């Protein structure tokens, strides 16, 4: 058991490969989290234009991506688009898929945050001479973000976990590298190491979230 899951020799031998994966997972997360937030911000700002047609369209857009598995989206971009003469590479496909998928989730959260700010505040801000954009940027958004911080954090955790999908389209992130090391060494230890790394990286966030969520429930 120890030999096949916690083999020290294998850990030492495969560490350079796994380490490169860890680095790429970190870089990938640093790219896709802001990208998703940006996509979400666009959606949330569009939703603040209270036009029924726009609202309906946005709801359909968000529900579409809530219903569509991110892996299917990724495969569609990676394996489908080349038939249209567009070969994007795994990395770019991951970026686009995350922009669309996690953008929809972030958008829904930010929209709820903006809705939680009473419209009187916007009116007050506008009456002091701020433009719509200024009122949004300086008055509404800072409070909106604070109100939905636990949800934003929870979604960010999911986004970081989702980067493991990159392994399916040969992006050399942590899981991909671990599987490479596994097939080189015929030993499952590298995958266990990857799992331990994910756990060590994300456990503090899970603990924090758990506290925030309990407090939010108790506060009701």
């Amino acid at each position, binding site marked *: 058991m120890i030999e096949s899951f916690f083999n020290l020799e294998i850990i030492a031998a495969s560490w350079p490969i796994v380490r490169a994966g860890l680095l790429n997972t970190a870089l990938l997360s640093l790219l896709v989290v802001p990208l998703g937030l940006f996509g979400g911000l666009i959606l949330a700002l569009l939703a603040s234009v209270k036009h029924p047609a726009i609202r309906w369209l946005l709801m359909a857009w968000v529900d579409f991506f809530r219903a569509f598995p991110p*892996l299917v989206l990724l495969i569609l971009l990676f394996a489908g688009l080349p038939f249209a003469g567009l070969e994007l590479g795994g990395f770019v496909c991951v970026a686009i898929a995350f922009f669309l998928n996690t953008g929809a989730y972030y958008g829904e959260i930010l929209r709820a945050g903006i809705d939680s700010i009473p419209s009187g505040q916007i009116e007050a801000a506008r009456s002091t001479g701020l433009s719509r954009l200024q009122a949004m940027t300086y008055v509404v958004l800072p409070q909106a973000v604070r109100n939905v911080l636990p949800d934003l954090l929870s979604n960010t955790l999911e986004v970081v976990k989702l980067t493991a999908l990159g392994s399916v389209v040969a992006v050399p992130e942590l899981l991909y590298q671990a599987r490479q090391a596994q097939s080189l060494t015929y030993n499952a230890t590298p995958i266990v190491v990857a799992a331990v790394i994910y756990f060590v990286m994300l456990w503090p966030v899970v603990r924090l979230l758990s506290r925030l969520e309990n407090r939010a429930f108790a506060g009701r």
Partner: protein
Amino acid sequence: MSGWERFADTFLNTKVMLRYLPDILSGVVVTIELALLVVVTGIAAGLTLALLRSLGVRPLNWLIVVVVDLFRSLPPLVVIVLIYFGLPSVNISPSGFVSTWLSLAFVLMAFSEEIFWAGITSVARGQWEAARSTGLSFGQTLMSVVLPQAVRLTIPPLTNRTIAIIKGTALGTVVAVTEILGQASSAMSNSYNPSPLMMGAAAYIVLFFPVVVAARWVETRLAWKR
């Protein structure tokens, strides 16, 4: 051929679609089976853990928290790969279907336990004490006083989380489960045509979109009554 015709011939090729429709449909059946299994076992296990935790046995609670935290921190795909490629080295070889089912059920168990537990603790202590002082037993208090209130609070986050996790059935394709995405991918490589993939994508929408809309409806219904 005009641009649209060429596009349709590549991505919506009727001949290819008709040929692989049975495959996609069998994939739909596998996806539904997998999703139902995950939902039933995952939520049952999560509720069981939350109820065990309410007994307040210290060492047991620590164990529950660690297991829950573990499956909340690990990406589901990592759990699937770990079970499918890892366990054979100790002479247990679960199929791709079983690996995917177990992994997603563990993940749903973890998230639903956390949600149920938050729901249980949201019911004020005074209510427990009041119910017990009227002569209700621990079990009766839990079933008739605490859970009815807790469940209402838990439904919206639970449906959202459940949808996100059953979408993960598509991950089964990595370990050769013949669900929708797996069938669509192999049909695509057999026919050198992406039309089966488009069909697969459409199947996911047909399958999950109504669930998302229903969840939204339930969410607003519960929000009014709170």
